[in-house]
């Protein structure tokens, strides 16, 4: 536990020292949202809740892929070897997943605020939408962390990251969009229990698998 805490703290400090990474991601979200806003300027009335919802999650998906892709590739080879000698691989993957979920939460929260600010907020049940953001941030972070680990071992990691992660993340994305749709329509929470349990179980499967598989990935 202590090991994980130290590792998370190390990630935060690293991020804080090189602020350009996080601020770069924030700027990425903001400018994408703004591009979408300007593109829809011609026909504002065509921005139905469905389009609003889909656009928002696609922006978040691309943000997530870009933000998490660097979680392994930004570390130098020597530093990785140093960690290898110091701590267990399980602690590293868990700390990375927690840290990435935190980053994703931050990015999607701020992204949502800005998105709602410029594009309007048709969400009727904000509480459920927040749960949706929480579940999807942890889900995206846990899937993409392992994929980033796999992709960082190969040479053309940027392409590989996209190709490997998009099909794998799709069920999660579809479930999230469906849950967010329920939140938009302000449906009763009992309608969405199916989606919430499915999302939670996918998260659980993915985190367990990352925990079990990462040691093998780490060794090479």
């Amino acid at each position, binding site marked *: 536990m202590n090991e994980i805490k130290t590792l998370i703290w190390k990630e935060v400090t690293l991020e804080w020292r090189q602020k350009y990474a996080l601020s770069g991601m924030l700027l990425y979200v903001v400018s994408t949202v703004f591009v979408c806003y300007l593109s829809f300027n011609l026909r504002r009335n065509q921005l139905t809740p469905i389009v609003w919802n889909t656009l928002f999650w696609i922006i978040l998906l691309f943000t997530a892929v870009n933000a998490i892709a660097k979680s392994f590739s930004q570390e130098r080879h020597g530093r990785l070897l140093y960690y290898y000698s110091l701590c267990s691989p399980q602690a590293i993957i868990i700390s990375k997943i927690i840290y990435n979920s935190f980053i994703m939460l931050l990015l999607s929260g701020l992204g949502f605020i800005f998105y709602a600010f410029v594009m309007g907020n048709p969400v009727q049940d904000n509480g459920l939408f927040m749960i949706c953001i929480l579940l999807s941030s942890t889900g995206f972070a846990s899937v993409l962390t*392992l994929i980033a680990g*796999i992709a960082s*071992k*190969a*040479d*053309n990691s940027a392409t*590989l990251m996209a*190709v*490997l992660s*998009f*099909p*794998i993340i*799709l*069920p999660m994305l*579809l*479930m999230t969009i469906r849950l967010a749709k329920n939140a938009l329509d302000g449906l009763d929470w009992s309608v969405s229990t*199916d989606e919430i349990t*499915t999302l939670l179980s*996918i998260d659980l*499967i*993915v985190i367990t*698998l990352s925990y079990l*598989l990462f040691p*093998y*990935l780490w*060794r*090479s």
Partner: protein
Amino acid sequence: MRKIWWKILCIVIIFYVIIMGFMGPVPRLAIINESIRNTYFHVALWLAMTTLLFTSMVFSIRYLNKGRIDDDDIASEIAKSAIFFGILGCLTGSVWANYTWGDPWPNDPKLNGAAVGILIYLAYLLLRSSFEDEQRRARISSVYNIFAFAVFIPIIYILPRLTDSLHPGSGGNSTFGSYDFDNDIRKVFYPAIIGYILLGLWLAELRIRIKQINRVREEALIDAGKL
């Protein structure tokens, strides 16, 4: 697996399935009509593919535990023949959908799931081809293979059941077994699955042997100092 009996068995079963599949008695059902014969091909192909992918994952786990490169060869070649079956399954399904649902690619969660599933495994092949070093490739693609199978099953078998799908067993539709799986179909359907699995293993086995022979020859060349 070098024995010949299972290859003969495979050929016999496949011929049995083809002949009985087109000539044998089938129940008369509205809308589906004679196209129910596609059960022997489409449904059986998907089940065979899932079994092969499962086998491939088992070999990947074995590779990670024991570190023998042969296991990785087996895993990747079985996955390749499973992808081949997957594409055939899509094509046969497309023919079937064209005549019963009126559209070769209806917007159906199971179809889209199947397409995504095939994409996942094509990505697996891409991942394999992006490494030079054999052990490294084997280790990393084994990790991905296990991960992929764990995601593949929900995409194909669990998610479509939660939504409305045209396929039986989804969105409140009953499964095949519950209403129209009579004994005539069973007699051909179960052998068909076994036949396709054997065929897939045979395809994989040939390629595995070619790979191993090439490896032995390369090592011999290196030993002789020619490479």
